[in-house]
């Protein structure tokens, strides 16, 4: 059924098809005249049936038959047996259409329509399905219809599971059967109580699929199902708050002009007015239901109700891993001797749920204080001419100073120990067992998917053992596996590269010491006080993706230059970020910069020497909000006043990104897109911009 080459038609076939189309045309015109005159006589119905038998794709004819049925049923309402025969006739027409083309959408839909009227027996349907699934066991129309019929017949999930089991036993490459099984199991799990029974179901499925994996490790169907099981296992764990900003126990110092902490008070032009500052909650999986009802914030100056929670997930969905709310402190009279205490509680009242419907593993409580900074020694007035330059000489690694800047609490044992129980014995045992089996399999067969699965399993187990990612015991092995895979499977090397970049990131941030090696003081701003701001430099590491943002929520200045980044997805979690260097990466479009739109503090951005505009068509475009999508994010309408001559049509993606940013400084040279026209466009839409490519604007 699948993978058959297309043959050029020979002359006889061409003649036959010409004759067929002649016949079809005459039937079609007869049918249309009946349709237009609303003629539903026996003869008219025969014509439409004939037409559909030859061409089941004729949707108009199906609709005509629906009208005809309604008409005929109305005429013989009093006689149930004749009503039944009307519908039975329809089933026959559908069946002969399906014999012609068993993948006809119209025919399947018509059959559903007939059956949902409830006048026909459904007993025959499974027999018909068996016949069609024998012809093509991966006919998704038939599978969809099977689910419809099973629901209509109230067939038990167990019976349907047995059916998929039989088909899989016949041929375990039948991905459709595995897929249907995953749907049925999800339903089954939802019906049962959470907890042990779900675990039993999953354990049994692991055993079932293992036979297929070992019998033929090169078959993808079973691996896909195995991956699905792994996801279910991970999701069957209650969600956990893994980090937050401010961290629990933090003492925040806000400088006179409202800038935060030790970092940004020093370059006022580059830091925002932090009279509103963020509260970021970072979970280990997607959750929904973060709202002023489920998260209580206690402080003398604010109540929970004043907060609006927003998911930072790029997709417009109810779920997100990172949630943010802004606290307005403009009316608070801050005093350095009298810190304001803020207590955040979540999980005390229900409502926060993971995508598999599990509540938070336990309630969380965060407490921190906000106070004013002591009077500063040097003036920090506005310096119009200040420019943030990423010069090597300006970065100094002086550990003593840096110690204080990374929130120590990210790495305390105390946090970890409390949550040792977050992953159950079963989860860890299951992962360990699967890891052992895959290792045994890899010892005897050189199997790419097996290696990938082993890498995923190892990461999943490390993650379960150490939810705060402080002990990634197997990252070296995982990196080695990805190196192997890049070599063995070049077509997918980009994916493997991305995965290993994420692992590398995880390794970097896993301990305070390794993170400190990448932290530097920035002393390029002359107006600053004694301490320079802290910069995290992850440059020149061959990263193609960035991750582990839960450990980086405190970062103000981030240097990611000279990597191979093609995406910066996830960076939106760094709500304090004010300077970002993405120079010399592989970003190909403005759509890739989409995450920056949520960074309200971003002032200096360097995207020079990337590949933006190198490709005439933005291939990421459809993953991104567009003028046609009705997302709440875009509050822009065409009537909005724009400066004259702004070329929105040509630079839509750029417009979307930059109109929401208050950039003071932008470097964009070295991208194919960065011509004069584009520069003038930029100047128009970013009124605050002072420096463009190192040149001061008027």
């Amino acid at each position: 059924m699948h993978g058959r080459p297309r043959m050029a038609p020979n002359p006889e076939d061409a003649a036959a098809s010409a004759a067929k189309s002649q016949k079809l045309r005459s039937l079609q015109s007869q049918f249309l005249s009946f349709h237009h005159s609303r003629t539903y006589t026996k003869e008219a119905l025969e014509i439409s049936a004939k037409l559909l038998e030859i061409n089941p794709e004729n949707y108009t004819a199906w609709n005509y038959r629906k009208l005809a049925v309604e008409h005929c049923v109305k005429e013989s309402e009093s006689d149930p047996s004749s009503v039944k025969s009307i519908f039975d006739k329809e089933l026959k027409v559908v069946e002969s259409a399906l014999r012609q083309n068993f993948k006809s959408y119209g025919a399947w839909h018509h059959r559903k329509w007939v059956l949902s009227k409830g006048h026909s027996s459904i007993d025959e349907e499974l027999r018909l399905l068996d016949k069609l699934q024998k012809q093509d066991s991966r006919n998704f129309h038939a599978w969809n219809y099977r689910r419809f019929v099973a629901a209509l017949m109230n067939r038990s999930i167990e019976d349907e599971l047995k059916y998929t089991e039989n088909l899989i036993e016949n041929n375990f490459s039948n991905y459709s059967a595995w897929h249907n099984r995953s749907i049925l199991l999800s339903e089954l799990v939802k019906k049962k109580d959470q907890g042990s029974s779900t675990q039993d179901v999953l354990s049994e499925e692991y055993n079932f699929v293992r036979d297929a994996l070992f019998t033929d490790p090169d078959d993808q169907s079973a691996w896909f199902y195995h991956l699905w099981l792994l996801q279910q296992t991970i999701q069957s764990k209650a969600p956990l708050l893994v980090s937050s900003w401010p961290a629990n126990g933090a003492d925040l110092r806000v400088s006179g002009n409202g800038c935060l902490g030790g970092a940004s008070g020093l370059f006022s032009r580059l830091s925002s007015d932090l009279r509103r500052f963020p509260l970021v909650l970072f979970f280990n999986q997607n959750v929904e239901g973060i709202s002023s009802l489920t998260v209580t914030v206690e402080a003398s100056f604010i109540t929970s109700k004043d907060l609006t929670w927003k998911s930072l997930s790029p997709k417009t969905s109810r779920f997100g891993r990172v949630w943010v709310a802004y606290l307005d402190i403009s009316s608070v009279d801050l005093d350095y001797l009298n810190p304001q205490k803020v207590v955040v509680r979540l999980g005390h009242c229900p409502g926060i749920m993971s995508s598999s419907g599990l509540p938070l593993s336990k309630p969380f409580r965060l407490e921190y204080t906000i106070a004013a900074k002591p009077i500063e020694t040097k003036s920090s007035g506005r310096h119009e001419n200040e420019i943030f330059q990423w010069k090597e000489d300006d970065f100094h690694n002086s550990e003593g100073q840096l110690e204080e800047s990374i929130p120590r609490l990210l790495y305390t044992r105390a946090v970890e120990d409390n949550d040792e129980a977050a992953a159950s014995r079963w989860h860890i045992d299951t992962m360990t067992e699967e890891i052992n089996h895959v290792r045994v399999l890899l010892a005897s067969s050189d199997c790419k998917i097996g290696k990938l699965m082993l890498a995923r399993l190892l990461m999943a187990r490390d993650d379960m053992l150490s939810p705060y990612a402080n002990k990634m015991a197997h990252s070296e092995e995982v990196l080695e596996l990805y190196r192997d895979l890049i070599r063995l499977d070049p077509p997918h090397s980009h994916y493997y590269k991305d995965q290993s970049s994420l692992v590398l990131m995880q390794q970097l941030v896993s301990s305070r010491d390794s993170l400190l090696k990448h932290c530097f003081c920035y002393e390029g701003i002359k107006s600053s006080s004694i301490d320079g701001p802290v910069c995290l430099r992850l440059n020149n590491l061959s990263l193609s993706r960035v991750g582990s943002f839960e450990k980086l929520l405190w970062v103000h200045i981030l240097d990611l230059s000279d990597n191979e980044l093609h995406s910066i997805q996830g960076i939106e979690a760094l709500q304090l970020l004010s300077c970002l260097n993405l120079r010399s990466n592989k970003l190909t479009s403005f759509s890739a910069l989409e995450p920056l739109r949520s960074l309200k503090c971003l002032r200096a951005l360097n995207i020079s020497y990337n590949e933006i505009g190198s490709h005439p068509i933005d291939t990421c475009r459809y993953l991104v909000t567009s003028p046609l999508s009705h997302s709440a994010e875009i509050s822009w309408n065409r009537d909005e006043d724009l400066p004259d001559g702004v070329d929105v049509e040509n630079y839509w993606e750029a417009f979307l990104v930059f109109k929401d940013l208050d950039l003071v400084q932008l470097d964009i040279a070295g991208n194919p897109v960065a011509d004069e026209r584009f520069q003038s466009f930029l100047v128009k839409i970013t009124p605050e911009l002072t420096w463009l490519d190192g040149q001061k604007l008027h």
Partner: protein
Amino acid sequence: MTEAYPQIDPTTFDLIIVGTGLPESLIAAAASAAGKSVLHLDPNPFYGSHFASLGPDELSAFLSSSSFPPSSSSGEDPATVSLTTRPLYSNVEISSLAPETLEEHARKFNLDVAGPRVLFCADRAIDAILKWSTNHYLEFKAIDANFICVENGKLMRVPDSRSAIFKDKNLSLIEKNQLMKFLKIVQRHLDPDEDASSKVSQEDLESPFAEFLAKIKLPPKIKSIIMYSIAMADHDQDVEACKNILKTKDGIDRLALFQSSVGRFPNSPGALIYPSYGQGELPQAFCRRAAVKRCLYVLRMPVVALLIDEENGQYRGIRLASGQDLFSPKLILDPSFVFPSQAGSSPEEPVHVFSEKAVEAKVARGICITRSSLKPDISNLLVVYPPRSLYPEQDITVRVLQLGSTSAICPPGMFVLYLSALCNDATQGKKLLNTAISAIEVSQISERNAGVKNEDAEVEPPFIIWKAIFIQELSAGKYGSICSTPSPDGNLNYHDLVDAAEKLFHATYPDEAFFPETASPENADEDNCPEDDGPLEEA
């Protein structure tokens, strides 16, 4: 007495064939399809000769009938050479343990003389059946499961396909992996689209199969499954002195046959099928096919003498028991006839012997009628006892085929076991079969005891109610102006027999095609295919 025999008219034919076994029937069908006038005789009152299916009593009589008495009329006539028959069967032991039960159902049995024998769905016999459209005369039943005896007498289902390996409960995960990996090597080797690098090397192909399997690190259990229950090797392949080493090349061919048999017909999920009403149906079907093409059939007609040209000693014709003389340029006899060599050949016409690998001269066969199935819920099954599974010195595979009443060969509630093993002499053969039968009985007793914990059970009726064990001579086909067809061989299928019949036919009629030129018309009505059994319809 003469009056009892009909007169045959005409008296001259292109070919006279005596015996209606499978090779003879195939040749009769081929020759009459080629337009030859053929007379097909059989001294017995039934079709099939040594491939017949008979009731218990007829079978006993057939096995013990040693030879036909030479006719009195073939006295001193110099133009005749008297034709004698030799017994193919010896050491016949028949015991009936429940004669009344058997008596009651005697007419419901169709016991195969040449069992155990089945068809592989992709073998040459099936090709012959399809090409001659004899499938319309036949119905087949699937052999539902194959078993192999593994360590400590346990029967294990043979994982013979990808899905069977997946489903199997006895193999460990690693064993599944190894077995499937091996099947893939075979598939790649056989795939015409694969390049040479993925094929088994020439050197390996010529090496012993057992060595090749060891080379790719298959454990003994998997090796044994492949060699004895899929490639159906008869001899112990792990013994240095093995007389019949299976080469990798042949091993792979046998696996290929098995693999292509699995799933060829939608009604038969496995590789093996068996003709309903017994294997005697097969020769009969070819005879019917021949009869349609004007082959003349006369049963119950013994041949007593050959007619010889007095001048050159060449064969001219035969004398029937009726006294009638019939003439033909060619004569084909079944293997039970003995004829003086000078009558069959002239100096410039050497005798070709169509011998395959006749190392042993004999095959031991056994037939048991039982009251219950070896495996509950499965009635048609094959069991292989590979070398050393029954006793340490066992060097020959014993095969056991169980058929139930669904194959229409016995009454409901009963089963027939066919056993066979190659052997050099009767003692060795009987030891092989008797040990296998005891092993089966022991496993039955333990199974029953496991089922019902009954301390003071009344004396159970015996598991086996009728048993026949005999030794059959093996002989290859011979070609001359008088030809002789091969005897039933020790194989599980008809592959070599069809080959031998084809070779005999080509030797006799070098210019004629063995299979008809035009393929049988496609069977148009697909929906007509019965649910379970019926004519063969390819998937």
